[in-house]
Structure formats: structure tokens, C-alpha cells
């Protein structure tokens, strides 16, 4: 009987891991992807949808069309995992046995955690939210625009900065910038989590006349007064408020007692195995690793998870290790972008924003569907930054 691998989640990490396993082990393996929607969503596109630069149609595809023909897809919610018995319970009854389990469950938005957030703030972390924000921007006639995050960790760390810089451009194009104040609310002492990226971004904010409020950890939104209040005791008035909702790990991780206090999976930083369960692996947004929660992270982790499971099934010692590699683009507006390439040992040294990186991001957006889920972009594509790399 072939070995059973169950992959929870049909996003970047789950899809790529399943496809690589099917390719490496063929008929010696039975892989099932379990996903509650059966749709694969390209989340980086939400930013462009919110700003009217893309419609929603190219942002989602049927997961079945992206999977290797030998991979099964169960369009089902997983409700509980029993790591000792090696089973996953499904919402409509029945269970799937596994020899190895991959948790690619992503993150969950929990906007209700902040009072007033749902009624008072916009977001672009769901397609519905992005399209609603697009309509609000179309009706905007000038005023105070506040952009921030309502909790850490959150997906795609550059996104709030990107939105801030791109909304500045959007308002200039519509002749509304002189009637508007744009401010980025940061929970930290700087604009961005990574210091080197902050040093690049903050002068751009200043040059564009964009305000920066640091140490602003959102506590509450008052939609009737049009104010947002911080844990630090400050209040800011808005006409348009855009806040990334707080995130948690998925409910199935929490109900199965496989996560930490935030619902994130305790994950070995190199092997990507669950720290308490050797037959369970995790990748992407679901982990507790101190890395960007982004598709890029999942993209670089998936080959490691697939390789380690394939080795274990063949009875050989797993050799693949994850070095913390991430590569993200960061749009800076005006048709320019930079790139953040880093790993556990090397912080990013972002290049000066240019049209090249903007074009690269757009090319990636367009090529995504036919490359990343199938593993057609090799994981060792570009050096992080060779000049700064320490000798091995």
C-alpha cells in the first residue's frame, strides 16, 4: 500500500509541497490536499485590486487545475488532527489517515478582536475587503488617510507600506493629494519591521510628505467619532482608515492543541518539523518562525518539506534544510519597486527603488499561475546578496 501524506491547505506552500512529492515519489505515494474552499487565491493581488489596478478575476483559480494529476483534492474543512493516531477529521464526517502530515493552513483574520475595526476600518487582506476599499477610494474627495496594522504578526509585512506609497500616487493622479494627509501608523519605532528596509523607506515617506506615527499599537476604532486610539494612549482622526486586521493561526491547529498561544505551529527553523511531532511538518504563514508570513517564504520552504518527507519514506536520512530564505518585492509607487532578499543569517540590503524591480514584480504576478505552484521556478533562483555573504 502506498504511503499516505495529507497536506492541509491549498495555498502556495501546500500546493507546491504536494506537487513536488507526487513528482518525486510517483505511485509509491498517495497525497491528498485538503482545502475548505478548493480555490487557490493569489493574495498579493489584493493590493492592486484595492487601488483599481487589477480586477478580481485573475486572483483565484480552481485548486484542482494547479495540482499534479496523482494528487487528490478534498474540498473539505479539517476539524481536528490526532497526531498519535495519525488521522485528520473532516467537517462532513470521516477521517484521513496519514504517515506524514503537512500543515500549510495559513493565517486567519480576526477583525473582531479590535473594537470598532469592522465598522470603522477598511482592509485589503481579503478580496471582498479590497473591492470595498476600491469603492471607498473612488468616492474619496480628500481628507485624512491613515494606514496601519492592528496586530503583529501579519501577512506580507511590506503591504501596508506599499499601500501607503501607492495611495499617495493614486491621490496625486486624481488631483486629491493637496486636499489629503496620508499617514502611516507603525506599531514599532520605525516604518517597517526590518531595520535596513526602514532606512530605505523613511526618506521616501518624508520626500512625499507622508506622515509617520511610530509606536502606535491600535487598541480601538470609534467609527462615529472617526478616530483610532492606540494602546500607548494616543488618538488619531481619520476620514479613511485602512488597517490590516489582527491574525491568528487556524482554528484546527488550536482545537488540536498543535499551536502556541497565537495558534502558530511550533516549527523547527531548519527541518520545518513540528517541534513535538516528528511526522508533522509546517510551512508558510502557519508556522511560528520569525520570518515574513508570505507566499515567498512558503515557496522556499516547500522543497525542503517535500525533500525531507521523500527521504523519510525512502528510508534515507533527510538532508534538506531551510536557511530562512525569503524574497519579497516592495512597491514604492510611481512605477518603482525594490526587493527584500534575506535569510536567517543575512538581513536584506534592498536596492534603490527602480522600474526594473517594479517590472519584475508585475512579471511575477503574471507568471505566477504557470510557474510557482508547479515548482517551475527553482528555489535557488537568486543569491541573497553575494557581496555581503559570509564565507561558509
Amino acid at each position, binding site marked *: 500500500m502506498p504511503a499516505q501524506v495529507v497536506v492541509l491547505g491549498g495555498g502556495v506552500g501546500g500546493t507546491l509541497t504536494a506537487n513536488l512529492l507526487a513528482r518525486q515519489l510517483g505511485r509509491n505515494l498517495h497525497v491528498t490536499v485538503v482545502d475548505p474552499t478548493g480555490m487557490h487565491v493569489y493574495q498579493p493581488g489584493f493590493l492592486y485590486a484595492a487601488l483599481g489596478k487589477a480586477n478580481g478575476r485573475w486572483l483565484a483559480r480552481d485548486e484542482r487545475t494547479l495540482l499534479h494529476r496523482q494528487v487528490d483534492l478534498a474540498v473539505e474543512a479539517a476539524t481536528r488532527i490526532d497526531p498519535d493516531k495519525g488521522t485528520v477529521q473532516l467537517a462532513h464526517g470521516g477521517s484521513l489517515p496519514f504517515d506524514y502530515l503537512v500543515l500549510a493552513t495559513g493565517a486567519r483574520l480576526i477583525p473582531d478582536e479590535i473594537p470598532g475595526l469592522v465598522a470603522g476600518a477598511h482592509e485589503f487582506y481579503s478580496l471582498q475587503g479590497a473591492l470595498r476599499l476600491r469603492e471607498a477610494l473612488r468616492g474619496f474627495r480628500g481628507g485624512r488617510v491613515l494606514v496601519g496594522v492592528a496586530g*503583529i*504578526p501579519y501577512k506580507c509585512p511590506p503591504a501596508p507600506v506599499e499601500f501607503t506609497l501607492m495611495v499617495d500616487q493614486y491621490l496625486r493622479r486624481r488631483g486629491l493629494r493637496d486636499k489629503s494627509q496620508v499617514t502611516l501608523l507603525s*506599531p*514599532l*519605532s520605525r516604518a517597517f*519591521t526590518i*531595520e535596513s528596509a526602514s532606512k530605505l523607506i523613511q526618506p521616501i515617506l518624508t520626500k512625499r510628505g507622508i506622515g509617520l506615527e511610530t*509606536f502606535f*499599537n491600535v487598541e480601538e476604532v470609534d467609527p462615529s467619532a472617526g478616530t483610532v486610539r492606540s*494602546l*500607548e*494612549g494616543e488618538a488619531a482622526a481619520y476620514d479613511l482608515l485602512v488597517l490590516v486586521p489582527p491574525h491568528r493561526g487556524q482554528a484546527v491547529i488550536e482545537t488540536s492543541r498543535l499551536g502556541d498561544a497565537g495558534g502558530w505551529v511550533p516549527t523547527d527553523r531548519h527541518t520545518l518539523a513540528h517541534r513535538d511531532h516528528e511526522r508533522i511538518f509546517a510551512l508558510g504563514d502557519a508556522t511560528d518562525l*520569525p520570518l515574513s508570513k508570505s507566499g515567498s517564504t512558503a515557496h522556499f520552504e516547500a522543497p525542503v518539506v517535500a525533500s525531507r518527507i521523500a527521504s523519510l519514506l525512502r528510508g534515507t536520512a533527510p538532508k534538506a534544510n531551510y536557511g530562512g530564505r525569503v524574497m519579497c518585492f516592495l512597491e514604492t509607487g510611481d512605477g518603482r519597486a525594490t526587493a527584500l532578499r534575506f535569510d536567517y543569517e543575512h538581513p536584506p540590503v534592498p536596492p534603490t527603488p527602480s522600474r526594473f524591480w517594479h517590472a519584475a514584480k508585475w512579471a511575477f504576478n503574471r507568471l505566477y499561475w504557470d510557474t510557482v505552484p508547479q515548482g517551475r521556478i527553482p528555489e535557488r533562483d537568486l543569491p541573497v546578496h553575494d557581496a555581503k555573504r559570509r564565507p561558509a
Partner: protein
Amino acid sequence: MTEIATDQVIDARGMACPGPLMSLIGAIRQSQVGTVIEVWSSDQGSATDIPAWVAKAHHDLIEVVEEDGFTRFRVRKAR
């Protein structure tokens, strides 16, 4: 002088910036006024970030103690 007891210890050693600060902020959110929280951090950025945040948020930084390979920050929730 009476020793001020610590109510909660957050061991954030090994966490990269902004992990230790965000752990402290999360604990402050969940605790009652008067609670004393101690954060252990091995990240160098905490030396500036944690005192700066405590001052901005109007809490009390009771003491900063250098240990072998990490720093202990003791903070009282003041409001």
C-alpha cells in the same frame, strides 16, 4: 527597600526584533494595572526599543539588568 515581585516572565531570548517588544506589548494588553512583567531578550535592538516604547506608553521601567548573553527588562503596567 522592598523587592518588587515579578508577576510574569517572558523568555524572548533568541527572538529577532521586533519579537521581544511585541511580546511585551501583547502581555501588557492582557494584564491588569500594576502587573510587573519581565522580558528576557538577547536582541540588541531591545536595548533602545523597549525603554522607548515603555516611555511612550507611560508605563514604568523598573530596571534593566544585563545577564550573561541577554538582558532583563522589568516593566510595570501603570495605567
